[in-house]
């Protein structure tokens, strides 16, 4: 449930239908309009949503048989003063709200595993590929990326050292090394090493907040929820606005 059209460069037109139950196009409530009849059919905003009530509403409006239309010329400027604690809280809260939505819109308990899929259309959209979808005793959504592999490796190496299984520990540390190279290397610019390191740290902090939010929110809702840490950044800032 994380496809946000404001991060996609769609032309005006109908939003594509959801490819899976989990990831659905949605409009954030800072810039959205509803036909009153659609709101009446969908039944208002879900007051149990901690965050993501906008995602939930777009899903329900679509499921009630209505189309979602993207209008790129209907622009809203959003003024936010981003601080590091603010960024942490924002991503934590996004993650925290997702497990409820996941459970709400999935008809029965399943284990779903997702991977990142680079978008082929050239748009800015995040797309994910479901690589496993099986009935399961409880709700579980696991995203597998380099960030998750890095932490899985760390966890396994600690366990292996603790149990005295050195071969396992070395293999786990190898996983940590490879994942770290993939995770941090993907955004590394050798012309600006210091800046790259700084930005990688910020990216790691945002992903950590997002993942932690998903795990904690999941515990509360009885869902094993490993967040899809492949979000795209917001589209424009003052600098780009001035440049246009």
């Amino acid at each position: 449930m994380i496809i946000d059209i404001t991060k996609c460069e769609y032309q005006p037109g109908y939003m594509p239908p959801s490819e899976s139950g989990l990831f659905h196009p949605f409009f954030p409530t800072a810039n959205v309009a509803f036909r009153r009849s659609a709101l009446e059919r969908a039944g208002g905003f879900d007051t149990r949503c901690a965050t993501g009530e906008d995602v939930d509403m777009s899903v329900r409006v679509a499921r009630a048989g209505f189309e979602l239309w993207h209008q790129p010329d209907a622009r809203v400027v959003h003024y936010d003063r981003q601080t590091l604690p603010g960024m942490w809280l924002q991503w934590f809260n996004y993650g925290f709200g997702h497990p409820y939505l996941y459970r709400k819109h999935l008809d029965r308990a399943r284990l779903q595993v997702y991977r990142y899929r680079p978008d082929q259309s050239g748009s800015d959209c995040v797309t994910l590929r479901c690589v496993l979808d099986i009935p399961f005793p409880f709700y579980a959504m696991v995203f597998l990326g380099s960030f998750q592999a890095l932490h899985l490796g760390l966890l396994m190496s600690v366990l292996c050292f603790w149990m005295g299984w050195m071969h396992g520990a070395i293999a786990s540390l190898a996983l940590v090394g490879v994942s770290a190279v993939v995770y941090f290397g993907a955004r590394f610019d050798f012309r600006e090493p210091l800046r790259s390191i700084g930005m990688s740290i910020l990216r790691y902090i945002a992903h950590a907040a997002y993942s932690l939010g998903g795990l904690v929110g999941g515990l509360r809702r009885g869902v094993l929820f490993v967040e899809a840490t492949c979000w795209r950044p917001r589209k424009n800032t003052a600098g780009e606005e001035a440049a246009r």
Partner: protein
Amino acid sequence: MSADETIFSEPRLTASVVIVTRNRPGPLARALDALTRQTLAPDEVVVVDNNSTVSYANVIDRFTGQLPLKVASEAEVGIPFARNRGIRESSGDIVLFTDDDCVPEPQWVEEMVRPFYRDPHIGAVGGPLISVGDPDSLVERFYAAEREAARRDH
């Protein structure tokens, strides 16, 4: 503007703008000011006060003559509660939402309402959010770097 003539031929769809606010009269005034400068004036602007502890009297006074303003309050703190209050208190065929820290561009209402005329099956219309932060702040520079990297990926 022949396209507009077709689009806005009868029956006209009325538009209500709903803004939820909590303790931010200054930014709300900026948002309401933007609504006074729309190419298509909204039929109604509903401000939902979500249990604020600061006074909105100055802002409400200032815009009462300029906008078809309606003030509602929702004591239950939470965005979904307040937005539902806004839906109940508004009467337009189309309900537009924005936030108190946002500024809609002048053609916003017109562009948001326009698609609803072309197809009765359209239930929701959304547009881009352009974030304006302090470009020198660490977090803004980070988001800018991520966008740059995303562009390189393609």
